């Protein structure tokens, strides 16, 4: 077990390092080819005083000569940036000169909340529906579950969001407000947009909606891997032992089908960020997805790099957790 964990940890660190370097190299290339983003500081149209430009370049770490040589990997600024990150310094934005670390402390928790709700929704729904369909294989329930999930999954998530915001949110909010009042859990739950005073409550509904992305895939995965185990020899043994059907499902089928499911969940989690861009946009949630989208539009190089770094860290972490869960679930992996 110990060796397995250490090996996975080292792999995760290496992956992260390579990702960060590629990210750095791509942005360096874009500066080298497209020109100096420091000009943006001056509004982009006027030609600034060279002394002032140099000062601004120093401020944003663009003062290295390597940025003028296309193809140069710019290792010195890369190492400097990593050192700054390690010290907790994420730099500032070009426009407004805001501390990026401070922005992150607002955006990251919001996106995490969104992910928590969407992951819970996805896993719970897929597990229940998949198990249900597997137990009634070939029957009406099986076909209904598969049909419905694929229907839900085929509707683009922004469409569900817009339908919710424009059709359901207002009447539901009014109804809840009349019964429980505005300053209550129910009064806030159905709001069509984010409210910073209720950061948890107002993210539940968007989280549930994002949670339907990938529902069909995961439900099918659950169903397929359970069917595989239901037909297995050890389930026949469990029946021969006189165990109840419910115990066979929980003890001998569900746990054995968890490995492909855990993989699927990790995969969807990594994908959820793209869903977050849309959801955070439509529901007005200040989160990472919206931040990265706007940073790209406004050519905020530093903000883009920081945002993508955070994303990379999250994806690597989730993959690591998935790998460790494998070992927890399957003794054959634990004792390799």
């Amino acid at each position, binding site marked *: 077990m110990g060796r397995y964990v250490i090996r996975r940890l080292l792999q995760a660190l290496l992956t992260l390092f390579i990702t960060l370097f590629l990210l750095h190299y791509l942005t360096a290339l874009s500066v080298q080819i497209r020109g100096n983003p420091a000009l943006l500081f001056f509004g982009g149209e006027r030609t600034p005083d060279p002394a002032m430009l140099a000062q601004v370049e120093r401020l944003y770490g663009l003062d290295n000569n390597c940025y003028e040589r296309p193809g140069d990997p710019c290792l010195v600024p890369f190492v400097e940036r990593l050192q700054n990150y390690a010290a907790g310094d994420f730099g500032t934005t070009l426009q407004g000169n805001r501390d990026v670390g401070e922005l992150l402390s607002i955006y990251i928790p919001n996106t995490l909340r969104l992910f928590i709700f969407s992951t819970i929704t996805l896993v719970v729904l897929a597990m229940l529906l998949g198990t249900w369909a597997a137990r009634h294989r070939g029957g009406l329930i099986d076909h209904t579950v598969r049909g419905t999930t694929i229907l839900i999954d085929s509707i683009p998530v922004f469409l569900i969001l817009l339908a919710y915001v424009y059709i359901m949110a207002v009447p539901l909010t009014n109804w809840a407000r009349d019964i429980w009042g505005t300053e209550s859990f129910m009064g806030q739950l159905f709001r069509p947009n984010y409210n910073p005073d209720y950061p948890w409550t107002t993210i539940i509904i968007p989280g549930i909606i994002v949670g339907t992305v990938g529902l069909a895939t995961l439900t099918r995965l659950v169903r397929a891997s359970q069917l595989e185990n239901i037909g297995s020899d050890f389930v026949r043994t469990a*029946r021969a032992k006189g165990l109840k059907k419910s115990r066979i499902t929980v003890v*001998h089928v569900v746990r054995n089908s968890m490995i492909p499911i855990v993989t699927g969940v990790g995969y969807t989690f990594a994908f959820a960020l793209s869903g977050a861009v849309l959801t955070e946009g439509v529901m007005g949630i200040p989160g990472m997805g919206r931040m990265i989208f706007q940073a790209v539009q406004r050519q905020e190089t530093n903000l883009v790099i920081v945002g993508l770094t955070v994303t990379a860290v999250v994806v690597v972490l989730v993959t690591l957790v998935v790998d460790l869960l494998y070992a927890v679930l399957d003794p054959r992996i634990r004792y390799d």
Partner: protein
Amino acid sequence: MAENVRVVGDTLPGADLNAPLLEVDDLRVEFRVRGKRIPAVRGASFTLERGRTLAVVGESGSGKSVTSQAIMGILDTPPGYVTGGEVRLHGVDLLKQGEETRRTVRGNHIAIVFQDALSALNPLWSVGFQIGELYRVHRGTSRADARKRAIELLDLVGIPDAKNRVGHYPHQFSGGMRQRVMIAMALALDPEVLIADEPTTALDVTVQAQIMRLLKQIQDDRHMGLILITHDLGVVADVADEVAVMYAGEVVERASIHDAFKRPAHPYTKALLRAIPRVDTVGRELEVIPGLPPNPASLPSGCPFHPRCWAADPEKCSTEAPPYEEVAEDHRALCHFAKEVYRDER
């Protein structure tokens, strides 16, 4: 195992201890696949008494494993359906019982050892958990006590260092040791009937002998009825008391092991016996039964064995289904010429 003694009537209402331990009477099983009905067992009958060993012998596809699954009530339905007959345990027809009673019978009264212990054990749970599960589910034993019982059982079936091995997982055991774990699991609740479905097929020869000895010894100690399902008559010779030979879903011959080996009354049994490799026939070509086992979806007319039979009458055997002929006391064969074959006249 004093605490294992219990009143049979508690878990099996209506049980009559004077009735035979297990009687299978005209059991019929069919598989329904895409509207077609394929017979797998076509009226199998045999009786098992306490302390006796019945060998059920047959080629693959002869219906012997399906019979054992039907007795246990663990047939996959669909596609398998029991369509007739009775399975009486202490005189109680199990096929007429509700699912809850049948579930209690499994493990408590009848237990089974499967062929391939690697796939028959759940890879994700320790062997101790899988054995202890029986006590916890059927007896409500605590987790710690169930573990203690599991250690005792592992010890009983000859697994060295049982105390440490109890927490190990199936993949950490060798093939023979895994089969011992399976046996320990089957013995947990001290069943009266143990079905061993090809228990040694997946093992190498020396380990096979060890496992057979273990089964025999446990059976003697506990006075269980043992049904030994196998395709290997050689394995059967030393351990079985009676034998039921199955062919195409029917029991074609029933006899004591001695009679079956000495004077078989069915041409198929005779052919099987000739096909056993023996030390005194070294150097001679091994006899085989010509042809293949019939496809249960399209059985030959008349006697299903006639196309492969060396004693068949081309007219009679291909048109008339053979009757059960009693050739001697407790020795019956399903053949038109059973008496002639028995007397070695055909």
